[in-house]
């Protein structure tokens, strides 16, 4: 499988009033036609990683080191012109809150047409035609009429469909999805997930899907990377991670999701709270909350150990597994 995205040794630090080590020594890759889930809780660095891939982080206050390679291009070395062509055409993004991501003063049709005109050099009329086609692809009812609708005139689910139409208008190879279904109602969320799954197959896109909800990841992802405190603590195929997680954090996260838990039965929890990220991690960030912590977890950063084909965990337990 060819790799569309290769990230290695990525470090992201926010400076300013206080320093935050948001992402630390992160490496991941995305294959052709693959859906990769970044799973983690708030502050784990999943959205920051996604934004770094498109260079959307504020320049002045962000220090990025490492390598981000997308389809042979070095993203971190791009200038503004190159970035404008890169965004929307090679890589496109959908966000959690379409009401904030869409421009409130232009109609949906105009916004989609503009992106087609900019990236493909087509005429505005051709752009409008593509817009109509895209609205039909994402199954917006009476698409023709909706072309002239402003974002505020649509319901939440419709807006999310419109944003997907905009993101896919120039047929990007890679779609980045930042919790696109989190703000939606349950009955709408499943519709959007199924739509994304179908479009991914139809367009042959690769997708990186950021979510905090394991259920959502199960519906859409092929492979999952679990993040904690700015690091990927475990990655592997969805089945492996869900059925037999190795890292104690991944285990705890799966156990604490209330799925089919019986009333009166205690829920399994992870004690404590995530670390503050004010320092660069020099040992296992999860050790203070870990039931299985050993002295050496506190002494040094555990290595990223390969425990199987395409399966790795950053934990001393994984070392033991790999040794046997």
């Amino acid at each position, binding site marked *: 499988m060819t790799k569309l995205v290769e990230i290695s040794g990525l470090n992201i630090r926010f400076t300013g009033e206080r320093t935050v080590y948001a992402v630390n020594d992160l490496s991941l890759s995305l294959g052709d036609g693959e859906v990769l889930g970044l799973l983690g809780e708030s502050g784990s660095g999943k959205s920051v990683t996604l934004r770094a891939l498109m260079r959307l982080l504020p320049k002045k206050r962000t220090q990025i080191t490492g390598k981000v390679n997308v389809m042979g291009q070095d993203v971190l070395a791009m200038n503004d012109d190159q970035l404008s062509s890169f965004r929307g055409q090679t890589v496109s993004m959908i966000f959690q809150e379409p009401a904030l991501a869409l421009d409130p003063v232009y109609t949906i049709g105009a916004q989609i047409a503009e992106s087609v005109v900019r990236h493909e050099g087509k005429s505005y009329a051709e752009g409008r035609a593509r817009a109509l086609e895209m609205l039909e692809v994402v199954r917006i009812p009476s698409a023709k009429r909706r072309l002239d609708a402003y974002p505020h005139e649509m319901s939440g689910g419709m807006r999310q469909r419109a944003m997907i139409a905009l993101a896919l208008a120039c047929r990007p190879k890679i779609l980045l999805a930042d919790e696109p279904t989190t703000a939606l109602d349950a009955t709408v969320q499943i519709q959007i997930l199924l739509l994304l799954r179908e479009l991914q197959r139809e367009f042959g896109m690769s997708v990186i899907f950021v979510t905090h909800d394991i259920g959502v990841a199960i519906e859409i992802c092929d492979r999952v990377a679990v993040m904690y405190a700015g690091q990927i603590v475990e990655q592997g195929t969805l*089945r492996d991670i869900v059925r037999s997680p190795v890292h104690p954090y991944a285990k705890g996260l799966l156990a*604490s999701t209330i799925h089919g*838990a019986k009333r009166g039965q205690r*829920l399994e929890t992870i004690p404590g709270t995530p670390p503050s990220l004010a320092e660069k991690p020099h040992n296992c960030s999860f050790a203070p909350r870990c039931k299985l912590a050993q002295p050496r977890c506190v002494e040094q950063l555990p290595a990223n150990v390969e425990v199987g084909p395409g399966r790795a965990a950053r934990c001393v337990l994984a070392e033991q597994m790999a040794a046997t």
Partner: protein
Amino acid sequence: MTETATSVEMLEPVEDVGGVAQPLLQVNGLTKHFPVRGGLFTAKRTVRAVDNVTFSVAKGETVGIVGESGCGKSTTARLLMHLMPRDDGDIIYDGMTVGQALSLRELRRGMQMVFQDSYASLNPRLTIEESIAFGPKVHGMADGTARALARELLGKVGLRPENFANRYPHEISGGQRQRVNIARALALSPRLVILDEAVSALDKSVEAQVLNLLDDLKREFGLTYLFISHDLNVVRYISDRVLVMYLGEVVELGPVDQVWDAPAHPYTRALLAAMPSSDPDRRTEEPPITGDPPNPIDPPSECRFHTRCPFAEPLCANATPKLTALDRMGHEAACYMAIPGSGHSRAPAGETA
């Protein structure tokens, strides 16, 4: 912990009047409509946020309310707490009608609420200890006693008072803030606590901690919960009985296992089927229903679900189905398909039809 528990003075809980058989809370025909100003040439319209909602909560039970945004579940909670005036309906707390036999001040002693936004519901200028002690002081407790009570309650919700009492809300995490809000609600020794999406904004691992805490507190203080959430897994875990709301109306209610195992209303079925799968080999293939929930401004007439219902028949648009008992366990649904002899082709054969 135990020796301090006896030394700290708490406000006496509101007295139990009616005994165990009397519901702690009885809500009859609760209604709230918000007027929406029309344009220059358009007529005035109304949001029918809560429409003729009737239910009861027994002593010591946990009742869940589920539904999507705009279904009226949070408005119901606010009406119960008298945070906004209601248009119609009665709220009866332990046999006493609020506003007649029971004053609002007494009601607040007996009923407290925890909100979704843990930050917005605390005064940013008060320390945590002051916030928790504020309620008891309003109800006549001396400052020193109230502060001691606040520290005691902090311990009960799993926050060490020596570390947290003098901190401000912005200095602690969301999960810790929500624990503070729970302590604040408990400071008046209420018997009923309304939890309005109280765990929805928390991360999964923290959510489980808070749910365990709620379970402990319920047992220790003999509480009754009204638990509002959009998360069906959480509601199933915590509730004894559940109400399903759609566009301001209760469409189904009953013991949680009956509702989950044999949902009678097509909306409940869709809601349950919309939950993401937990098995990678059995993903959802078909969306259970299409479209968004309609705007609660001028909702569809008669059965409000008929515009999205796959089984809708002309009957559903012509008359409103009433909540009808399905068994003797209190399982009720408002759907013609569940009402014997209603005239719907899928209705069970009725004795009187």
